[in-house]
């Protein structure tokens, strides 16, 4: 695995709250993960956006004084705690009924200190976040594949993803099944390498 630098540099740059470019990049990379996680907990899209926004504000305040210690956890753990904290805050605030824009319906087993699953040692909220985190890295890797592979290969990958059989794809695209398998393997290998690299970079 190669020694990463990009993400590390980004995290280091985040210690400077005035580094707007770093924050923009960080925000564009992680906002969707946070929004999807919030929506998985039943927040409306707009409320999920708000929670993501307040999470970034919390991060902005916290990052300059902290440093990542890999011995104590991953960066995703940190992100999870931030967003969970923000969801809890919004939930407690929005227990009072207000207008349509504030309609939240966070499920009972979602987040916070009162989760009934806490005693079992399995935090469903953390599990959900971890699943979203894996999806997040798959999405980034897929975006890279879509940018770097030939359109024909990307089209085949899209069909494979939809569950179309290799034989049908081969017939439609005028290729041998072997060629389709080869493209599938190339995309898989590249995506795997992207995901590994991203994970290493993230810390």
């Amino acid at each position: 695995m190669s020694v990463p630098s990009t993400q590390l540099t980004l995290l280091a740059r985040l210690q400077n709250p005035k580094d707007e470019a770093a924050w923009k990049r960080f925000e564009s990379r992680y906002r969707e993960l946070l929004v999807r996680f919030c929506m998985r907990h039943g927040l409306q899209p707009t409320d999920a956006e708000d929670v993501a926004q307040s999470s970034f504000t919390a991060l902005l305040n916290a990052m300059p004084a902290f440093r990542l210690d890999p011995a104590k956890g991953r960066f995703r753990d940190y992100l999870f705690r931030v967003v969970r904290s923000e969801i809890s805050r919004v939930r407690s605030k929005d227990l009072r009924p207000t207008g349509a824009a504030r309609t939240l319906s966070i499920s009972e087993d979602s987040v916070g200190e009162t989760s009934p699953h806490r005693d079992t040692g399995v935090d469903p909220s953390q599990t959900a976040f971890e699943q979203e985190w894996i999806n997040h890295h798959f999405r980034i890797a897929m975006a890279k594949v879509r940018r770097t592979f030939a359109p024909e290969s990307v089209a085949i990958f899209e069909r494979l993803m939809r569950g179309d059989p290799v034989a049908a794809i081969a017939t439609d695209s005028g290729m041998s099944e072997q060629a389709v398998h080869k493209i599938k393997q190339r995309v898989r290998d590249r995506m795997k390498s992207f995901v590994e690299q991203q994970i290493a970079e993230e810390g």
Partner: protein
Amino acid sequence: MSDGRMDGAPLERARPDGPVAPDPLRALDVVERKAVAAFESDAWLSRAALADEPAISGELAGYKLVRVVARDLRRTVYEAVDERTGQRVAVRRAARRGGDSPTNPADPASSATRAARATTPPRHPLVAAVIAVVDLDDVRLVISEWIHGEPIDHWSDLVRSMQDPRTAVVKIGQTLAQTARAVAAARAAGAMRGKLAPSRILVQADGTPRLIGSGPIEPEEPREARAGEAHADVVALGLLAYRVFTGRNPVDSSQAIETDTPSIRVIEPDFSDIDRRRLPRSVARVVRHALASDASRRQVDASTLADRLEQALGGGGAADRALEAIDAARGFARRRRTASVAVLLVILATTIALVVAALSDSGGVAR
């Protein structure tokens, strides 16, 4: 708002020696192994499909949200469908100020949900129409016509790569002049707001630009979202022109095309090494004036800039044409040195021969 304290977070207070790099070779944990292990079977395809599902679902004030098309720190733009009419629309959602706070109680009328108001600015064919404005508790939705098109920077990159330089200049220049007219119209309607980013100008399949993201400006909106001065449009269009003609960013992206600053300090971009075929002198002059440090040298407004640009695309004046010819000759000389020397020698020899012949003729007449 959270105070940023994260109990149990895996971050510590920074040490004097600064941030410590995570070890890239550390062992994968359970979750990371799970992510990588998906590639050991066809599970990676189903995981990819799952990750690829649209991020949003639901509705907002009667609009079914389809996807997020843009977002920044203050607002989010959705592609959506009007559930009553089936019409595809863009929904821009932004926080409102002056709403529900102890020091600034909300106006009961404006805080009523779904209070659609007919405050749309006058329509202009090049400006995406605002269909409705909807106030919710503390957010405002601006519903606009949905435009199918390519952001002007991407579009111009494509044009430059596919057309010969002269055709590309004319095509891009005409679209840019139309854009300037759209900006002028939005400004006149009081609907010009925020940054004139390339992503706000969508070029349709027929080459027509449409300005999106304009809309009525409300007093409670943040200052950054309000309209700047008309002269700021000229600078923004100058920066945009530099980008679309040359393919290069004129300044750092964070400060580019900012139209909401009352007094703009412009760092003039470098024109010296630009291929004249990409940016002819007459057009470059218009762009340079738009970006002049001295504000008095800039065009007075977007409409004037459009006029000047169209004039320049027509070939400019005789002086411009002469200078273009000299530029072309210089370019030829740089590319074909031997041929240039040969041509010069032929011209010199011909001139000498003509002079000698003329002198001989005059000598003969004198005799």
